[in-house]
């Protein structure tokens, strides 16, 4: 059985990617399951979707815990424990990451012994959540990596899932899906089908557990006020608003009042401060600031600058 998990952010077409791959498997004669999983159905929030495909009826249910292939549409999700990208990854799992870094660097970073491939990134520095084709690209690449899906089945699957969007959208997505399919021809069949899972055979994966959130966040006082602040929605962000304090004219209200999340406070001396733990990166402040003192910068770039390593 093939078990494939796609990770990305709301808005990237991750659900669609799993539907396309599921359809492509189905058209290749497989039994298929595909399903998305997300908490808040929100643009930018972490989401994953998974596909099971087998030649005989599938009796497994629920989330895939032992993936054979993990596709990551947004590399910034990898280090976020809540996104669960690395859950169940073993040395038999193939990882495909949309990243400007090299596979070798990822292997070094992750130390999982798992093979890593990288999707070539076309437009570095842009809003990665906004790339409209990335879902189709991921589906196309995955279809080639499993090695059992014919090009024609992928074309039909993209048509099955996206024809409703109109001819232009369909063609655009098809181009990207096929480009990815063709780009990975050298790696066709790299994904190894996992064995059936026996309940008795469960072994703890060899990984280092990351620190869980503090107990305070998991169970804050039910009578506490504004406990939602324990949820760090800053991880939704793919663009970061950065205030240029030279240009900021200390109006004391515009960005702070119009920020939908109230994530900008103004200090006594009228200086605005963005709460990056909670700013979701909507960029309303960038759009409304009269002297254009707030810039939208790539979150990944900003993080890299903070901790160059």
């Amino acid at each position, binding site marked *: 059985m093939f078990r494939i998990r796609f990770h990305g952010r709301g808005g990237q077409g991750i659900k669609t990617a799993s539907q396309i791959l599921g359809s492509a498997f189905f058209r290749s004669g497989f039994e298929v399951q595909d399903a998305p999983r997300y908490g808040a*159905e929100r643009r930018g929030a972490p989401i994953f979707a998974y596909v099971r495909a087998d030649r005989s009826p599938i009796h497994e249910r629920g989330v895939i815990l032992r993936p054979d292939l993990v596709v990551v549409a947004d590399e910034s999700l990898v280090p976020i424990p809540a996104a669960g990208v690395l859950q169940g990854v073993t040395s038999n799992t193939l990882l495909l990451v949309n990243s400007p870094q090299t596979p070798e660097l990822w292997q070094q970073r992750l130390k999982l012994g798992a093979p890593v491939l990288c999707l070539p990134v076309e437009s570095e520095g842009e809003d990665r959540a906004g790339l409209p084709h990335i879902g189709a690209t991921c589906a196309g690449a995955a279809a080639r990596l499993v090695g059992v899906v014919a090009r024609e089945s992928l074309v039909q699957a993209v048509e099955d899932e996206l024809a409703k969007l109109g001819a232009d959208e369909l063609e655009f997505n098809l181009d990207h899906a096929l480009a990815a399919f063709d780009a990975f021809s050298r790696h066709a069949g790299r994904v190894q089908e996992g064995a059936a899972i026996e309940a008795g055979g469960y072994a703890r994966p060899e990984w280092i557990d990351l620190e869980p959130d503090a107990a305070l966040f998991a169970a*804050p006082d039910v009578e506490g006020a*504004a406990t939602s602040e324990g949820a760090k*929605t800053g991880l939704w962000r793919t663009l970061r608003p950065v205030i240029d304090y030279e240009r900021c004219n200390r109006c004391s209200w515009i960005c702070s009042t*119009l920020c939908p*999340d*109230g994530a900008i*406070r103004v200090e006594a001396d009228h200086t605005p401060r963005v709460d990056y733990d909670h700013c979701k990166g909507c*960029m*309303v402040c960038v759009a409304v600031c009269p002297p254009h003192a707030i810039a939208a910068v790539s979150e990944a770039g900003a993080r890299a600058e903070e901790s160059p390593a």
Partner: protein
Amino acid sequence: MSAETRFGRMKDLPSTHLLGTGTAMCAGCGGLEALHEIYDVLGARSVFVNAAGCMTLLSVYPFTPFRGSWLYTSMASAPAGAQGVRDALDLLLARGALPPEEDLQVVTLTGDGAAYGMGLSATSSAIERGLDFLYICYDNEGYGNTGQQTSAATPHGARTATAVGGHVGWKKDLFAIWCAHRPAYAATVIGAEPLDLARKIEKAMKLKGPRLILALAPCPTGWGYEPRDTVEVGRLAVKSGVFPLKEYEDGRVTHTKPPHPRAPVKDYLRLQGRFAHLFEPKRDEATIAEIQAAVDRYWEGAG
């Protein structure tokens, strides 16, 4: 504005915010923008009775952005829930178990699905009974939490999940329906006009009885525009006259920010994916003209 308000100018708006961050509302949510502005004026001494909708996700145990209590009801029964909370508070006050200075504002919070449709009967009877409560409707003109299906608040021509070719009906005039009940106060607000909003909430807080606030909630997810444009879309809703800012008091409706001159409605429609089919691939002049004519008619009548 007279000395009756503490919000004389923009700089009087609160610069620190009471509503907690970390909620599950979408990035760029126009409803949350309005709610956090409202909450700053309303204050922490309030109980929220929340009907099912997007904002159900505000308070998911164990997290809440509020500083007071929150009660969740089914879609149609938030005003009935508010009645129960108000009655309980009144009983405590009558028994001397709650000092008058510790009394709470009872606030109903619902989306347009509940306000315009399923919950309208409960709202109507709550106003009829003279319930002392503040009703806030965040109106994103569709069933947003489930994928933007058509609601009774969906405007003419808008594409929704259930009206793929554009909604053939017209947005229900909920404000007029509310006013026909002769409540203590009713007003329309939008997060993009925070000073107007703050003054109206401040006024509502000083009154007793049913007070109803209709907040247009630009919705990047449901309306199909970039989250950063929430304020731009909101300002154009007002400038184009599509969403009149007004208040009802003592049997009279007053427009608080009539647009002069009015921007063409196409400027507002153009920004949103839900109206894209009116412009591409072929311009649907007839529908655009129909929408413009409806807005013009409204403002002629408004005198």
